């Protein structure tokens, strides 16, 4: 009897701990959301309060009323979409042959992708700046897309390679038996089967670009500036303008969080399975 009783207490304790832990992790972001909903004057009140006394959209109106932030959001969106498309076009075919037609060169290629993931952004940023300058692509969407794709492609390659591992070679053989060329088999038979894997890879490429800061800081100055750069500039331009800063931080991060919550099962699978398989 006592044993069962002790186990119950143990279970309650574990549940309580887990809940406490989860809540304490969510708390900072909830506070950010609460702060953005305060009237601008209350944001920096001393002592600070967790919940707003009155709910106000003043901070959101301020940042959306300027020309800079909406334009930066548009830039971010365009860059992220183009980066995603380009990364998929480059990585999906390569990952396919790298896993289904294994030979020394494809193994070497995947190893190169892996090493590329270790390269610090700042080390590549320095020469990329010079390269884009030579090509006349500094402060352009094209230039930033190229830079972001160079980070997204290795990630997309490794993710897609892991997904293609699960496909039996017989699938392509069967398609070829029916008279498809290798390329037709890939385009018409294999790709449709890989829809969900491609979707997850696309999402990760998108987020890689959407969240990226250092390249955007180095390689853009005015017309191609993305959202994180503009948000960071509230630091210096407006001194300590915490109100607009929290509002733009919410606008910038909430869409990604909502998408994540909706697709969380697939995303967490994508994030963790590479590591666990290793």
């Amino acid at each position, binding site marked *: 009897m006592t044993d069962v009783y002790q186990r119950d207490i143990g279970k309650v304790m*574990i549940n309580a701990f*887990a*809940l406490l*832990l989860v809540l304490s*992790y*969510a708390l*900072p*972001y909830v*506070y*950010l959301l609460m*702060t953005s909903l305060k009237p601008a004057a209350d944001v920096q009140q*001393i*002592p*600070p309060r967790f919940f707003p006394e009155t709910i106000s959209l003043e901070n959101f109106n301020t940042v959306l009323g300027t020309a800079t932030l909406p334009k930066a959001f548009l830039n971010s969106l365009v860059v992220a979409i183009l980066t995603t498309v380009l990364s998929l*076009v*480059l990585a999906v075919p*390569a990952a*396919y*042959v790298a896993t289904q*037609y294994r*030979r020394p060169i494809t193994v070497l*290629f995947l190893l190169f992708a892996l090493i590329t993931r*270790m*390269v*610090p*952004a*700042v*080390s*590549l*940023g*320095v*020469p990329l700046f*010079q*390269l884009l300058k030579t090509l006349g692509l500094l402060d352009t969407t094209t230039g930033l897309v*190229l830079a972001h794709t*160079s980070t997204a*492609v290795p990630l997309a390659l490794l993710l897609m390679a892991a997904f293609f591992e699960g496909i039996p070679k017989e699938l392509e053989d069967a398609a070829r038996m029916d008279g498809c060329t*290798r*390329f037709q088999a890939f385009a018409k038979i294999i790709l449709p089967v890989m829809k969900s894997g491609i979707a997850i890879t696309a999402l990760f490429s998108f987020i890689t670009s959407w*969240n990226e*800061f*250092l390249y955007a800081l180095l390689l853009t100055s005015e017309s191609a500036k993305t959202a*994180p750069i503009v*948000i*960071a500039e509230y630091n210096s331009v407006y001194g300590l303008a*915490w109100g607009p*800063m*929290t509002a733009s*931080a919410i606008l*910038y*991060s909430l869409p*990604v*969080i909502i998408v994540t*919550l909706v697709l969380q099962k697939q995303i*967490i699978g994508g*994030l*963790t399975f590479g*590591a*666990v398989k*290793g």
Partner: protein
Amino acid sequence: MAENRFVCLMLAPSVLFLGLLVAYPVCLLVFNSFYEVETITPHIREWVGLKNYADALTSKRIADSGWRTVQYSVFALFFEFVFGFCAALLFAAIADKSQWHRTIFALPLMVPPIVAGLLWRFLLVGQIGILNYGLTGAGLIDDPGDIKWLSDADLVIYSVAFADIWLTTSFVALVSYAGLTNIPKDLIEAARIDGANALNRFWHVTLPLMRPVIAVVLIVRGVDAAKTFDLIWIQTQGGPRNKSEVFSMNIYQRMVRFGDLGEASASAALFLIVMIVLAGIAYWKIWRPSHD
């Protein structure tokens, strides 16, 4: 041989792309590191051999920023790992009912780093940082002004890591959780029947089986922590008095603020080599986990 042509055609676009945008810049980086050259006028250059490397290796500011990178990474990694692993054990203990816990816990995972940095700066900063009011309320400190997280020169390199810990504990937790659920139940049951208590079961069964997962987590997060730029930049821009300047920030400053492309390239090349060697050693250990 049609097969080989197919392989080449499918590989070619990404090989060309990575060649132009990764391999070529790396060569350019190494090339630049042997020259005295300024960021705004890369066409005017003078060969100086290994001088940039010698300068980088003897500069106190660079050595300090390198040491700070180690302090930051070790501190962040330690807490991320302890918190994340404990969370994973908790979630595994309540198994099926942990679905919602894990969903909420995964939230920081998708927060952009600069938002996490801003958020934590807001929690810690001067008079309005709510954390110190919380600590005062809990009776841990006497006055909210007692701890100056972001302006205390000795403390700042650890304070800026809070955002990192908050942001990536979830990654450690979710990966560890996935690893824990892969451990066969009957192994643990067998140990229980043999009379091993909970601590012994953890130490002799769970932990050894989790070794590969732990190693991957430590490498992936270790590399990321050492590369950190945006998270710290947004909180302090390296201040006060460069006391939170890590290595990547030092490279950025020398290239952009001081316009010294040659020296920045030499440090960036050194950084690259150290990261690849460290990751290589670590991967080697994982690939051959049986060789103790």
